[in-house]
């Protein structure tokens, strides 16, 4: 009789332990998925931005022939931004560099009123600004979720369940200030 009680007790404890363990595990998986989806949101915006560039280059090329080397650089960075296999950090870095070049191109085409009046060009400008902002906000969102996720996997008892399966997420570096992000706009 006594042995039966002990066996039942051990089984009960094991079951409780397993339930707690798996519920924590599942919870962590949820956070991990959330983190992954916020990461892929950045990727989506980077792609959208990369898709805009050839169109923009074609539109302004004729007006800024002297910026030939800048265009080449932009194209080079663009291919890195569009590269889905490259690490996200590198793609973001390439995007920042590309934005700087775009800003300088914009300064040099500023003198052309017919270009500035073209609806096609204005739409492109807005789309560029939009994707730039969306990338910045998606980055901010990722960092916010990464912080929650990191706290989650580092605190007890989650830390035991997390073990080596859940790795601490790195923050994505946000440009020093939003003002530093080149403002691709005319007014």
């Amino acid at each position: 009789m006594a042995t039966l009680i002990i066996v039942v007790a051990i089984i009960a404890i094991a079951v409780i332990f397993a339930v707690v363990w798996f519920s924590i595990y599942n919870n962590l998986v949820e956070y991990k998925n959330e983190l992954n989806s916020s990461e892929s949101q950045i990727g989506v915006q980077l792609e959208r931005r990369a898709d805009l560039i050839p169109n923009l280059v074609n539109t302004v090329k004729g007006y800024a022939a002297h910026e030939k080397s800048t265009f080449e650089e932009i194209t080079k960075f663009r291919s890195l931004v569009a590269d889905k296999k490259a690490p996200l950090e590198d793609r973001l870095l390439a995007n920042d560099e590309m934005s700087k070049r775009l800003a300088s191109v914009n300064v040099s085409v500023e003198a052309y009123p017919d270009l500035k009046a073209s609806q096609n060009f204005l739409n492109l400008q807005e789309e560029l600004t939009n994707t730039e902002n969306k990338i910045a906000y998606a980055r901010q969102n990722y960092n916010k979720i990464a912080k929650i996720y990191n706290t989650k996997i580092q605190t007890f008892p989650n830390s035991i369940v997390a073990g080596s399966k859940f790795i601490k997420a790195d923050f994505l570096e946000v440009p020093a200030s939003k003002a530093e992000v080149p403002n691709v706009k005319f007014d």
Partner: protein
Amino acid sequence: MSKPLFLLIKKNKRKTNFLIFWFIFLVTALGALIGFVIKLFTEGSWWDMATAAFLAMGISLIYAFVQFFYSRSLFFKPDSSVLVTEKSDPVLYHVVEDMAFVAGVPMPEIYIIDDSSLNAFATGRNPESAILGITKGLREKLNREELEGVVGHEVGHIKNYDIRLSSMAVALSVAFVGLGVFSFRLASVFFDSDSRRNSKDSYGAVFGLIFIAIGAIFLIIGVPLSKILTLALGREREFLADATSVELTGNPKGLSRALGKIELDENVSSVLAKSPAAALCIGEPKRKKSFFGSWRKLLFSSHPETESRVERLGVDYEEIKEEIYVKNEQNSPKPTNDVNVNSSDDVLSDFQRLLDDENNSSFDIFFD
């Protein structure tokens, strides 16, 4: 932020429920009173009184229900507001999209209000049904950064369910004042019928007087009620929404400049000032200067001073003002005469600040 978001949401929902309860209670009580008076004069039974009370309860229930689920009809008139789509105004649409994304709320519907003054407001019962209204003037005079600040502020109200409480508060106090006016109209109908029939034993004049009295009761309760509501809704909520906005955009200057522009702009509001939406706006809608206007400002002002709002964001208001003035001068070389500056206004605003400070804390007990 002093309180976690979920507590704020809970508090706002609770306050809204309180508000609806008191509204129905008051209207029912007044219905019973009308019934009682009718009983007195027609020598009817107590059933007359009960019927009147139940009728009043039913009407107030239906009104509260309709306003809860469809408050937009009160705030957005189809002839003065236009729906914004991504195609019709990509910049504004994208700004709202961004702010909703960072705040983690669904994309609200956006309407442009045909009003040349600078203002914005949000309404709805929850983030899923939220609607954002932005005046034409605001859309035209603010740049992208400033727009982000204003939209972030409104999204802040949406996120913590401020919109539910404030929309209901406005809808219910509008009903109260409306019922008062309706009673006066009813009274005049009775007086009319009395003079036409010209019979000695008709109750027309008596009923007329009764309805004037009832109308007066509605107005006597309703007008201070809306004052209390706007005060209870004011200040802290605005500061909090400002803080949320800066948290979302990471750019205190954008919102500060927007607030400065809203304050310094001289366009008088044509649509919003007359609309119930006035109580929901980010800045006090500007009305034509008049004696009555300044009293109204004293009585119904719900918003904290722009200066203290900007200073709370850690930005120097004087600097912002200078930036805006310099920009204005660049755009229009002829400096306009500053008709708006008058000293009595300063005295008023000081007095009002005093009032606000004293009332703000004590008015909360009306809800808790």
